[in-house]
């Protein structure tokens, strides 16, 4: 139960700087997810919080105390690793009780806490097994049990679900959420999977090349991405992002294709400005198949040709060429559609995003 705060945090390996002075405040009991592509510095940041990596600059505070030079054991944290990191020679019970044994806790206290964690995680029947006799999901559960038993102020998760198969991942995701509701600790969760971040976190931190691109609630980062990187990273299938040039109330794409300049951006751009136009597949739909009814919105309809379709049952992704590139649109309540067929597409421009092509920052108010 402690806030975590990073200020001007820097990590350098020799002359290479991988984390460039990031600032982040995690509130007490908050669940925060660090997401980003591999190599963006999210795991390094987490390992610095854990004390497994030295800090090259800046400051880390846990519960108000500067922990820069404290060893991991003095930081009152627990960590769950991607590869579980269980002690292979210990049973499940020994693994979970190890930290208490080291801390010199009474044997009966240890047993009680282990039993309680085992009950929470459904591990009671496995307490005498060794890690090599467990499945991946069970191992991850033990790793989580080991973290809970310590009753730490901060939980750190380093891509804990990446080694599990898709089905188990969904299941464990729910369990982590339940667990957080129950133990009420501060959580810093690293993942490269935006769905995990969106479903679990109170706030999401999107990192790229050692910088923080945006910090916000799942709704904020989805609806109001601060940069075109965030726009492309959050959301599946990803947002259609295309370079365009502002030209007399219009956006000019390649091959003479144009779209009207969305109303909300009219005063925010100048003629000849290079921008990145973004539109989510949900806001580009075959007419009559969208989420929104067209009236209150700024809908621009256009006749295109279907190049391919990806039917998913409840919806179909329809790909169509525009301005020399393929755009993806989402058709809800799908009707049968074949490649080569003409389709009338609705571009809901009121939902469009516009980013400066130079800085990548959103041009929204």
């Amino acid at each position, binding site marked *: 139960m402690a806030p975590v705060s990073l200020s001007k945090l820097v990590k350098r390996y020799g002359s290479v700087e991988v984390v460039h002075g990031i600032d982040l405040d995690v509130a007490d009991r908050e669940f925060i997810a660090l997401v980003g592509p591999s190599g963006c510095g999210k795991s390094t940041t987490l390992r610095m919080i*854990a*004390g*497994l990596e030295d800090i090259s600059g800046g400051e880390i505070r846990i519960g108000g105390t500067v922990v820069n030079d404290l*060893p*991991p*054991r003095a930081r009152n*944290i*627990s*960590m769950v*690793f991607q*590869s*579980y*990191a*269980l*002690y*292979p*020679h210990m049973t499940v019970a020994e693994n979970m009780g*190890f*930290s208490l044994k*080291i*801390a010199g806790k009474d044997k009966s206290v240890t047993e009680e806490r282990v039993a309680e964690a085992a009950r929470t995680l459904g591990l009671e029947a496995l307490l005498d097994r*060794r*890690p*090599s*006799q467990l499945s991946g999901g069970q191992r991850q559960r033990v790793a989580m049990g*080991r973290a809970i038993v*310590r009753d730490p102020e901060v939980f750190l998760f380093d891509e804990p679900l990446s080694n599990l198969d898709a089905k188990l991942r969904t299941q464990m995701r729910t369990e982590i959420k339940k667990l957080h509701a129950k133990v009420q600790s501060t959580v810093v969760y690293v993942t490269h999977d935006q769905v995990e971040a969106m479903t679990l976190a109170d706030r999401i931190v999107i990192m790229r090349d050692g910088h923080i691109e945006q910090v916000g609630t799942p709704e904020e980062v989805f609806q109001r991405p601060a940069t075109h990187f965030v726009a492309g990273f959050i959301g599946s299938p990803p947002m259609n992002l295309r370079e365009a040039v502002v030209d007399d109330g219009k956006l000019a794409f390649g091959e003479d294709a144009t779209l009207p300049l969305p109303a909300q951006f009219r005063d925010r751009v100048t003629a000849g400005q290079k921008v990145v136009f973004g539109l989510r597949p949900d806001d580009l739909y075959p007419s009559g198949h969208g989420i929104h009814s067209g009236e209150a919105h700024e809908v621009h309809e256009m006749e295109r040709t279907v190049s391919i379709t990806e039917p998913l049952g409840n919806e179909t992704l329809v790909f169509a060429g525009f301005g020399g590139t393929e755009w993806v649109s989402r058709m809800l309540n799908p009707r049968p559609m074949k490649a080569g067929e003409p389709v009338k597409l609705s571009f809901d421009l009121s939902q469009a995003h516009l980013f400066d092509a130079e800085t990548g920052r959103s041009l929204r108010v």
Partner: protein
Amino acid sequence: MAGRPDGGTTRSREAKSGFLKPWKLPAPFLLLLPTFIVLAAVVVIPLLLSLYSSFTPFRLTRPDTIWTFIGLRNYERLFTDWDFWVAFGRTVLLLTFALNLEMILGLGLAMLVEKATRGQRILRTIMMFPMMFSPVLVGFQFKFMFNDNVGLINNALQSLGLTDRAIPWLIDGTLAFIAILVAEIWSSTAVFAIFILAGLMAMPREPLEAARVDGCTPWQTFRYVTWPFVMPFAFIAMTIRSLDIARAYDIVKIMTDGGPAKRTEILWTLIARTGYSDARMGLANAMAYFAIFLSILFTVIFFRKLAQARSQIGAEW
């Protein structure tokens, strides 16, 4: 064959199952036969012969004594032979000291080398240098170093002012034992170091980090996480080295030849002396068979420990 009448095939089959059959061995047996013959010639027959000779008063100087069967009398003599038991005990003592010290030193070396971020390959190669020398040469080298008059060690001790007399390294029984131990350790600590280093390098990093987060001090991390993982590797080295020391001969032969006055006699120097110098090959063979039991015993113990340690870390090898 295709054109032959039925009668012809039947007849040839009869011929096969008749008197020709004993000469036609089955193919698998035939193919393995050369191996059997070679093995019998170089291993089985000499082994049986030596076993048989341990039941005879066979002397190399009187070859016909091999035909005199005396039953277990050689073995009976062994059990009452004080010299034999002293040598036996000294061998076990050497084994115990050498194995333990080599393991501690090897462990330390391996952990230091593993920490090295640069030049680890070179360090590993250097570490193995002592193993590249013939034990006989190692014996000569240490014999010179421990020599009480011209030896390096006494010279060094005297120049440093630590002593003003010539310490009789290879003459005093205990000191000679220490000298032999030092030579043995110098030449073979690398076996432990290499195996333990292999274990350290194969060890996954995450449990170590988990231990740090779990609150372990560096010592506790070693004690509860690193050591259990490295243990099977140490047991492999122990097995190899216990066999090595149980048959130790060369270094001792060169350094002290079991002397002076049998003060450093170990099993194999005694066996060699009994067999060749005293020419009592029958008795020597009886001793040798007994010595082999020692080796087998250690091998069994360590293999059992190894299996136990392996299943503990859930090793998949």
